[in-house]
């Protein structure tokens, strides 16, 4: 029997990419701006979402998809307590959300009534970077106590970002975090990246971020 070579040249995650494109189309049709929110565990993803809800409501309606590896509703409960619709997705131990899981989550949100969808990814700096969810932007929450070397150690996640939030800046006087070294690493991977230093604890730094976010929601509404 003879062996022949068949050219393939197909991305290994092409099925995910196709589903992500469908999600993006669906979000666009509903004029909803969407964020894939990534971070390591404990960086402040849920705290950031709560801050944004607090500062955008009641003028804006926000839907949240919460990804977790365990069947818990701790995060989703915090969102629904704020009067916003939330869907909890259990990845069954998987280390990241994928576009198919997000599609299921979108099914359960009243998309036509929303201005913004935030997808809280599984706390992890490695795997979520490889899976497009179909959102408009990828946002990473870095936090000061994690250390200033993270861009150097997790370059992939920093390369694919549109926005970086540096959380817990109120702890800068107490921890050994060299902001210049951190930002140099970010600049090497993602020159000119939009960055908002904030503290979800004290509330500092949010004015600029909220201004930017309202602009994004507005241009998505007008279909630009």
């Amino acid at each position, binding site marked *: *029997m003879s062996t022949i070579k068949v*050219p393939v040249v197909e991305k*290994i995650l092409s099925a995910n990419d196709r589903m992500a494109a469908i999600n993006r189309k669906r979000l666009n049709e509903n004029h909803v701006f969407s964020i894939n929110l990534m971070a390591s565990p404990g960086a402040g993803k849920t705290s950031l979402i709560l801050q944004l809800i607090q500062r955008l409501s009641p003028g804006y309606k926000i839907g949240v998809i919460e990804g977790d590896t365990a069947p818990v509703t701790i995060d989703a409960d915090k969102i629904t307590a704020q009067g916003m619709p939330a869907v909890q997705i259990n990845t069954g131990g998987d280390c*990241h959300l994928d576009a198919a899981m997000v599609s299921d989550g979108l099914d359960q949100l009243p998309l036509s009534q929303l201005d913004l969808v935030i997808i809280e990814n599984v706390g992890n700096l490695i795997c979520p970077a490889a899976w497009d969810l179909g959102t408009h932007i990828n946002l990473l929450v870095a936090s000061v106590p994690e250390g200033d070397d993270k*861009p150097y150690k997790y370059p*992939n996640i920093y390369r694919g970002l549109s926005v970086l939030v540096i959380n817990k800046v109120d702890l800068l006087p107490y921890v050994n975090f060299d902001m210049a070294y951190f930002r140099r690493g970010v600049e090497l*991977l993602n020159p000119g990246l939009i960055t908002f230093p904030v503290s979800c604890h004290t509330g500092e730094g949010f004015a600029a971020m909220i201004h930017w976010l309202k602009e994004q929601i507005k241009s998505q509404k007008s279909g630009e």
Partner: protein
Amino acid sequence: MHELSVTENILSIALEHATQAEAARVTVIHLVIGQLSSIVDDSVQFYWDMVAESTICEGAKLHFSRVAAMFHCEDCASDFNMDSRLSECPYCGGIHTRLIAGDEFYIDSIEIEKKEVGVKQ
């Protein structure tokens, strides 16, 4: 990172192309993986033997081609390799760099054995 789901994706793509080509059996799968794609070859191979079982891909060899990470410096227009750690351009010290190779993650080709049609032994 998530080698099981990656391996299942590899199988599904290989089976699709093999079926189209009317393969009786797939013998080799050529994968191109950039240095920055955090995939562990041994883990993929480990899962492969399990997921490919009882399919026409059973026993197929996985061949990994690794692509080194290469950056282009926007300041001085030179290209350089990333060795072990993230750094500025080794020629001019510039930090405006762009990745030009190293994040590949695809199946390049498969090698198959065709069904023998109408041939009498």
